[in-house]
């Protein structure tokens, strides 16, 4: 009887120490390296209504790159919603800081993205809560860049940055043509 109790006690202790190792390491990996985000809703293209592997490592490089203009337009990023701090949203970067953007149904027709901000949009215009409703978003809200589609397995692929046709920053020449 006593032997049984000791073995049970040993089992509990092994379990607790394993938990003490596993939980912090898992949390750190999810915070720093990568995590899997599930894409719901109609805001991105149909092809993205799946699980995405979100690369957290790029988060820190991303922040630095934004200042060095190395972030690409067309990258898909995961960020905290400015309207609701508990919600994560996944959007495509349309414009970087300093870009001149032709908006779709924002209060101003043209917007210059201020420093440290990005212009993000969902791929489904009209079904998406994006910069067209809340304006440019601060880079500090971003916490990852989507790097791979991992589910369903037959669509496993790397996501390459791509801008939707006729979206993106307005060039100076185009601007003159419009005017």
């Amino acid at each position, binding site marked *: 009887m006593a032997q049984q109790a000791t073995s049970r006690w040993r089992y509990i202790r092994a379990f607790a120490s394993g938990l003490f*190792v596993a*939980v*912090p*390491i898992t*949390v*750190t990996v999810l*915070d*720093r390296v990568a995590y899997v985000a599930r894409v719901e809703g109609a805001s991105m293209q149909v092809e993205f209504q799946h699980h995405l592997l979100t690369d957290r490592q790029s988060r820190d490089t991303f*922040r*630095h790159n*934004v*200042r060095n203009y190395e972030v690409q337009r067309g990258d898909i990023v995961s960020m*905290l*919603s*400015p*309207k*609701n*701090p*508990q919600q994560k949203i996944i959007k495509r970067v349309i414009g970087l800081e300093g870009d001149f953007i032709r908006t779709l149904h924002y209060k101003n027709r043209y917007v210059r993205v*201020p*420093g*440290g*901000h990005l212009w993000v949009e969902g791929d489904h215009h009209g079904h998406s809560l994006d910069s067209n409703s809340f304006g440019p*978003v*601060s*880079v*500090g*809200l*971003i916490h990852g860049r989507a790097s791979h589609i991992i589910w369903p397995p037959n669509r496993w692929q790397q996501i390459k940055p791509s801008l939707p046709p006729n979206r993106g920053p307005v060039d100076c020449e185009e601007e003159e043509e419009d005017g």
Partner: protein
Amino acid sequence: MFRRAMWKTLGFVGYTVQYGCIAHCAFEYIGEFVVCSGPSMEPTIVNHDIVFSERMSRHLCRIQKGDVVVAKSPFDPNMNICKRVIGLEGDKICTSMTSDLFKTHTYVPKGHIWLEGDNLRNSTDSRNYGPIPYALIRGRVCLKLWPPNNFGSLNESPTGRIIKTEKD
């Protein structure tokens, strides 16, 4: 001999990773030490004070009016700002100077907060760039650690900018 050295190295690396991860979790979810610089929060926090900012109330959405918070600057994500929360979402904020004849007001939109420094004359805050998203908050300053003669909790706002609503 070689194998033993290898095992020792592996064990050392394992412990380093484990304790690094524990430290990361502590800093990310419990709290961190922040060295404040700049004059914007004088006299509550003066230049080069060390404060402890706890992360739990940010994760649980328990930030209240009057709290001093550390937040990411909306214009430079590598920089942190330390300000006092003047208004939460839906609050009415007076944006004009006290000397102005006409008072102008603005409402804080959903999911945003209004931050101001205690040193109103020397502070770049929401009066310049407007309300900032709640998600930019990193933590609530709860303890002043250094210098030791000022150890303890923070003072109330000296500016009287916090408008108490009738619900309180």
